[in-house]
């Protein structure tokens, strides 16, 4: 479903300095997986996620979604792909402050000319109901708690029934109980067939993963074998 083949991303700061947050990464993700990628801040996790979504172009290598190479796509094709096949849960607050909860959720359905707004609204209510915040569909994001906002973002990510959801630190800034609730929601949709790629620095999320990776020195290391351990090895924690 998702293939990263020899993907490298460099940013040139000036004539001499180049930073390489992702170097020669290879990864295959099958449909229905829940992949967790851990790593310290600045390790390149978010860049990897952005490469996967076509938000940035790799300096080297290729990214394939459903066997289609993103490098060959123009802006409108990439936009359509992100709109129809990929849902996003961003690390930062990403709701539109001037739109209500319901409007935020149905927003991605309005980018295509043929969208049916009545159907979209019905679907959005179902999603919000599943997230447990349907009663707040008419309020503005600033009237919601951090956990509620995260649920709205997840509902928005799922509105177009994407096959893939990319979640960047989905539980950051949340209390322990809300963190569990959010992850349980992701798990529920994962079990329904949605593929999740979750990047986080929270080791507690490893237990939800079908496979787990650590991003270190700009490269991925498979740490799936440790994901169910109650106490993680020291090198993993560091």
């Amino acid at each position: 479903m998702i293939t990263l083949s020899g993907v490298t991303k460099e940013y040139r700061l000036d004539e001499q300095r180049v930073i390489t947050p992702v170097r020669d990464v290879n990864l295959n993700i099958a449909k229905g997986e829940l992949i967790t990628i851990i790593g310290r801040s600045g390790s390149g996790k978010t860049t990897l996620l952005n490469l996967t979504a076509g938000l940035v172009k790799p300096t080297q290598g290729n990214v394939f979604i459903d066997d289609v190479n993103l490098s060959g796509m123009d802006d409108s094709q990439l936009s359509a792909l992100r709109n129809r096949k990929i849902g996003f849960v961003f690390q930062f607050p990403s709701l539109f402050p001037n739109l209500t909860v319901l409007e935020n959720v149905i927003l991605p359905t309005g980018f295509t000319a043929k969208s049916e707004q009545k159907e979209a609204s019905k679907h959005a209510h179902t999603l919000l109901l599943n997230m447990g915040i349907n009663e707040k569909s008419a309020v503005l994001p600033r009237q919601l708690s951090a956990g509620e906002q995260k649920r709205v973002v997840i509902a928005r990510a799922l509105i177009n029934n994407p096959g893939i959801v990319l979640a960047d630190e989905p539980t950051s800034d949340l209390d322990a109980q809300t963190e569990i609730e959010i992850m349980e929601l992701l798990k529920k949709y994962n079990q329904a067939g949605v593929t999740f790629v979750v990047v986080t620095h929270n080791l507690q999320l490893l237990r939800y993963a079908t496979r787990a990776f650590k991003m270190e020195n700009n490269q991925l290391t498979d740490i799936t074998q440790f994901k169910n351990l109650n106490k993680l090895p020291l090198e993993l924690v560091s």
Partner: protein
Amino acid sequence: MRLIHFAIRNIKGYGFRSLAIFLSVLVFAGLLVGTTVIIKGTQSSLNAGLQRLGANIVVIPQDAEDTFDTALLTGTNDKNLMPADVALKVASIPGVASVSSQIYLSTLYGADCCSFSETPLIVFDPSTDFTITPWLKSHLGRPLATGEIIGGSSIFVPRGNQYISLYGYNVTLAGNLEATGTGLDQTIFMTQATAQAIAQSSLTTAAEPLTVPSGEISSVLVKLKPGADAHKVSLQIYENVPNVSAIESPNLFGTFRNQITGLLLAFFVLMIILWVVALFLIAMMFSMSVNERKRELAVLRAIGATRNYVLRSVLAEASILALGGAALGVAGTSALLYLFQGFLSNIFKLPFLFPSAASLAIIFGIGGIFALITVVLAVLIPASRISREELAIAMRE
């Protein structure tokens, strides 16, 4: 959610910024349209005044050009006179088709015997006149009787009266000419017979008697034969008729035209400065706004909006603000000009004729389009820049 709703929500959501842009456009469009309406109104007024006279050349006493212009434009009295035989001399010049002489008089200042204070009276000769007579034929269908007058558009019968009193003599208002925005609107037109009747009556009924000059006239209106060269004819008038000035119709109100040319130039320069300032101000506000919303717009693209959608959504916001501001600015300015046209005309000593509905519609349209172009130009660069920014970088900022 449609793009237009998204734009409206953002306009409401970023209320202060939206209000600032809205007001900038409102002021800009208002001034633009206001200035245009004043210029257009002044030009229309001058043209209507010239058309009313209907002459190719006007012959007046020597060096009386300024007084004559002022009298026609502002409705003041012109007391300059010349011998009546000037009309005959001018009529004999080759190229002249017809001439008609006029005498300019005035009502008394603040006298009970006159319904209007210091109002110009133009005495015309119905046998030769081509200014009022054609109007009489088409509107009244008969010549003016003694005791009847025709008024400019601002002349009316005082409330509660049946007649207008001139030097204590009651005259009947037979009709009103269309507005020209010049002093002709405050002028009373009458025949020689009526003027004489008023003069006769005034000896006993007025605080001061009316004197109709005998053997003297104020002006000669000249109509040329088809194909005749106005400039050559006026040169011949100067050569053959002593102590007169011959003003060709396009040069009429020359002093005033010179004055307003300077004024219009100043208006024009001011408008350019204002346009540049408005453009810069709106561009700066939008640039700040899209920079503040960089992450928000990047998220919009990340969740599937194309560059084009983002660009259109920002342009839609700008266009709504531009059209709203322009509409209110244009309507507000027009309403103010309409309500205070007389006041402004008096203050600035400008002849002013409020433009017709069709002219106004064109001015409104141009004003609206110009405001829209200004805002779109101002917004295009920041909007285009933000829509092309690398998403991952924009989201980090």
